[in-house]
């Protein structure tokens, strides 16, 4: 069964450094998402992406964040200058279309630790 993959599984970085989290969505899916989950807290929406542009973003997704689909398969989340509070699990998700019955499929996540 096709699945969303994410790399790396774990990333440790120093505060102020840039990180890029990578995702390979399911191949025929059109809608892509990033969510994050701070330890012990809810899964929170960051950004959605369709047709090579951001569809919607949450208040969390400020100027430090950017997303890109650099080629036909990868979908990346960049954090320009990491802060301690960016430490979290980051989940990529993809979805075939926007019909109400369609599911978002989540990747296994990247655990980011900012020191």
């Amino acid at each position: 069964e096709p699945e969303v993959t994410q790399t790396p599984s774990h990333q440790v970085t120093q505060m102020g450094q840039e990180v890029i989290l990578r995702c390979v969505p399911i191949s025929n899916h059109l809608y892509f998402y990033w969510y994050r989950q701070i330890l012990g807290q809810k899964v929170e929406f960051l950004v959605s992406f369709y047709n090579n542009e951001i569809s919607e973003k949450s208040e969390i997704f400020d100027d430090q964040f950017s997303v890109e689909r650099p080629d036909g398969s990868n979908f990346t989340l960049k954090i320009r200058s990491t802060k301690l509070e960016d430490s979290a699990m980051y989940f990529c998700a993809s979805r075939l279309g926007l019909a109400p019955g369609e599911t978002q499929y989540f990747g296994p996540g990247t655990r980011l630790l900012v020191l």
Partner: protein
Amino acid sequence: SQKIEQNSEALNIQEGKTATLTCNYTNYSPAYLQWYRQDPGRGPVFLLLIRENEKEKRKERLKVTFDTTLKQSLFHITASQPADSATYLCALAGDTGRRALTFGSGTRLQVQP
């Protein structure tokens, strides 16, 4: 403001019993509601979706109800097994139409053998 609440942080039951988890929401008019399972350190896995015009949905040992008047969904696992132990998340698609999911905080279910 919009809120999704899952009333129990944790639920412990004996194997073979039925687990019932609750999800309440306010200031939403969702077209549908979803339930996900999340194991520690893993991404959410989709279980069931129920539409606003459906009262009940079943899939194997899982049953979901949706009451748009009460603004509540109940999620049942019958004949529970230790392998059902996980965190269960309720999620709504934002009613702005962007279809990103807003998750509840989850209920951690522990099924004792």
